[in-house]
C-alpha cells in the first residue's frame, strides 16, 4: 500500500503520543484501546478540535440561553430575553446591551430567538439522522448478511429509490402527511436520505462477514442473529459514527431550505431557515436578521463536516495502525 503523507503523519502522531510512552520501565502497561488511540489522533487534528468545541458551544448556547430569562435576579439587563415575548416598542433594534443581537420586527430578542431556532434545527437534525441510521443499518445489514438473490433484489430496489430527488420528495411527504411539526419534518427529511447509509453498512457487512472470526463463531455454533449483532455490527461502529456527522449537515440544510421556502416550522416557533426567510424581506435595512441565522446554519454544517473529517482520520481502518 502506498503511504500517503497523511498516513505518516497519523502514524508519527500516534507513536509520539502517550500510547507510545506506555511501556516506560517499571510502569504497568496501560491499556491502549482503539477508542483511546482514536481520541489521541482526533485531538491532534486542530481543525476538528476547534470544530468540536464550537459545535458543543453552539449546542449549549441553543439549549441554555432561552432558559436564562426564567432565572430571576440574574441577567436583569436581559430581563425580557424571551424568544416568544412580542414587544413592539423594541422592534427592529440593532445590537445593544439589552438585546445583544438586536430584535426582529415584533421586538423579539434575536439572541434568544436564534437559540430557539437552533434547538429546532438541531433536534430535527439529530432525530432525522437517527431515523436514517436505524433504517439504513437494518436495510443494509440484512442485504449484506443474507447476500445472494436477496441482496441483489434489495440493492436494485435501492438503485431505483436513488432516483428520487431528496427535497421534492420531502415536500411531497409533508404534503401527504398534512401537518408540519418537528416530527413530521423529521420523517420527511429522513425518508429519502437513508440510501447512502444503507449502502455503507451493506458494504461493511459484506467485507466483515468473510472474516475468520465469523467462521470461528459459526464453528462454535453461533446463530445468525448473534453473528450479525455481536460480531458484525459493532465492527461497523467507526464507519457509522462518521456517517452520523456526514448525514447531519444534509438534514440540517434540508430543514433550513424547507423552512426558508415556507414549508417548515411556522411562528411563533422558530427555526434558522424560517428566521432567514423573515430576514430576507428586510435585508437592506436590517441585514442582521438574515445574517445571524445564516451564519448559525453555516457554523453547524461546517462544524459537522470538520468533525466527520477528524473522526474519519481517527477511526478509518486504512489510516489505523495495526
Amino acid at each position, binding site marked *: 500500500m502506498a503511504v500517503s503523507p497523511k498516513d505518516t503523519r497519523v502514524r508519527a502522531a500516534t507513536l509520539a503520543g502517550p500510547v507510545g510512552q506506555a511501556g516506560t520501565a517499571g510502569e504497568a502497561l496501560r*491499556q491502549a*484501546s*482503539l477508542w483511546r488511540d482514536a481520541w489521541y489522533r482526533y485531538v491532534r487534528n486542530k481543525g476538528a478540535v476547534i470544530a468540536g468545541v464550537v459545535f458543543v458551544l453552539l449546542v449549549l448556547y441553543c439549549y441554555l440561553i432561552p432558559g436564562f430569562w426564567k432565572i430571576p435576579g440574574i441577567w436583569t439587563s436581559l430581563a425580557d430575553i424571551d424568544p416568544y415575548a412580542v414587544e413592539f416598542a423594541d422592534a427592529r433594534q440593532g445590537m445593544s446591551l439589552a438585546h445583544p443581537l438586536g430584535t426582529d420586527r415584533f421586538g423579539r430578542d434575536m439572541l434568544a430567538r436564534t437559540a430557539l431556532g437552533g434547538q429546532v434545527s438541531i433536534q430535527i437534525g439529530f432525530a432525522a439522522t437517527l431515523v436514517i441510521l436505524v433504517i439504513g443499518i437494518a436495510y443494509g445489514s440484512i442485504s449484506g448478511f443474507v447476500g*445472494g438473490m436477496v441482496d441483489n433484489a434489495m440493492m436494485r430496489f435501492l438503485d431505483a429509490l436513488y432516483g428520487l430527488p431528496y427535497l421534492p420528495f420531502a415536500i411531497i411527504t409533508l404534503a401527504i402527511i398534512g401537518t408540519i411539526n418537528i416530527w413530521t419534518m423529521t420523517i420527511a427529511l429522513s425518508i429519502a436520505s437513508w440510501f447512502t447509509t444503507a449502502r455503507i453498512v451493506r458494504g461493511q457487512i459484506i467485507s466483515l462477514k468473510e*472474516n*475468520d*472470526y465469523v*467462521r*470461528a*463463531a*459459526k*464453528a*462454535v*455454533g*453461533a*446463530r445468525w442473529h*448473534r453473528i450479525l449483532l*455481536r*460480531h458484525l455490527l*459493532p*465492527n461497523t*461502529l467507526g464507519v457509522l459514527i462518521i456517517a452520523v456527522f456526514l448525514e447531519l449537515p444534509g438534514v440540517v440544510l434540508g430543514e433550513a431550505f424547507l423552512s426558508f421556502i415556507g414549508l417548515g416550522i411556522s411562528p411563533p416557533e422558530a427555526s434558522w431557515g424560517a428566521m432567514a426567510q423573515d430576514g430576507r424581506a428586510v435585508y437592506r435595512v436590517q441585514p442582521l436578521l438574515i445574517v445571524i441565522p445564516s451564519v448559525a446554519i453555516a457554523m453547524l454544517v461546517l462544524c459537522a463536516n470538520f468533525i466527520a473529517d477528524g473522526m474519519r482520520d481517527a477511526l478509518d481502518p486504512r489510516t489505523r495502525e495495526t
Partner: protein
Amino acid sequence: MALLEVRDLQTHFFTREGVVKAVDGVSFTLEKGKTLGIVGESGCGKSVTALSIMGLIPKPPAKIVGGEVLFEGRDLTKLSERQLEDVRGKEIAMIFQDPMTSLNPTLKIGTQITEVIRRHYGVGKDEARKRAVGLLDEVHIPNAAGRLDDYPHRFSGGMRQRVMIAIALSCNPKLLIADEPTTALDVTVQAQVLDLLDELRHSHDMSMIIITHDMGVVAEAADDIIVMYAGQFVEQATTLDLFDHPEHPYTEALLGALPQIEGEGIREGRLTAIPGRPPDLIDPPVACRFGPRCPYANRKDSCTTTMPELREIRPGHLVRSAHPTSERAEVREEVPV
C-alpha cells in the same frame, strides 16, 4: 462404533469455470481417543474435508454432492442448519489456521469464551466466567482471571491460539478438528501448542483430526496419517509405518522434500522439490492423479489409463498407486540386468 465415519464424501465447488472437485470420494474412520493426521499440499482438499464435516463449507458455491459423515451414527450431512448449530462447538469443535484473525477484535476474550459456554449450556454469566477462567488456566495462560477482560490485540499469536483452543474446548467436544493449528506460529511456539493439544486430548478424552502440510507436525501428534492428493486419499497408514515404509510415490516425494540436517552435499544443495504441479481439479486426469508427476509411471502402465483403487497393501496400510514402493523393489529384483 467409531466416533466418526466418513463414507465416500464428495464436496464440489460450482464455479463459473466449471465444477471443482475439491473433495472427491474420501472415506475414513476415526476411533474414540485417536488422533488422525491429514497431510497434503495446498489445494488438495484437506481443509474442505474438515469444513464439510462441520457443515461450514461456503454454500454456494460449494455443495456436498455425495457421501455420508456419520458422527456417532448420525449423518451430519442430513442435519438441518439449526441442528448443525447445536453440534458445532458442543460435539465437534474446530480451531483455525490464523489465530490473529480468528478472534473478534471488538470483543473481550472473556466474552468470546463465555458466549460459547452460555450458548451450549445455558448457564449464568458468573458460572460461565468461572469456567472460562478454568479453561484459560488449562491452556496455560498466566493470570487467567485478570486476562479475561483484555481485548485480543493484547495477546501474541501463540497466546491467541491458546485462547482459540480454550474456546474450542469450552463445551468438552468429543472431536476436535485442528486445521493447520500451528502454521501461522513460529517454530518454538508450534511445539508448545502441539504439546498442549496432545495434553488436552488426553485430559478431555477427545478424538482429534490434525490437518497440516507439515510432516513434522503429524509425526509428532498423530496416531494415523492420511496423505491427500488432488481431492483424494492416496495413502493411509499408522504414523510409524508411513514414515518408515512410505508406499505411494507421492508420500515418498513428500518425505524426500523434507529439509535434511545432515548428509552428503546438503550444505550447497537446494531443497528437493516435486517436479510439476497438482492437476486442475475442474478436469482431473481420469487415470492416477499423480501420474503426470510420478517418476515410475510409463505409457505401458494401466495407471495411465485407469484410476488405481485404494488397496490394502498390508494390514492397516492403504495405498492408491500402481507402483507402491514394496512392489517396485520386487519388480526390480525380478528384472534381469
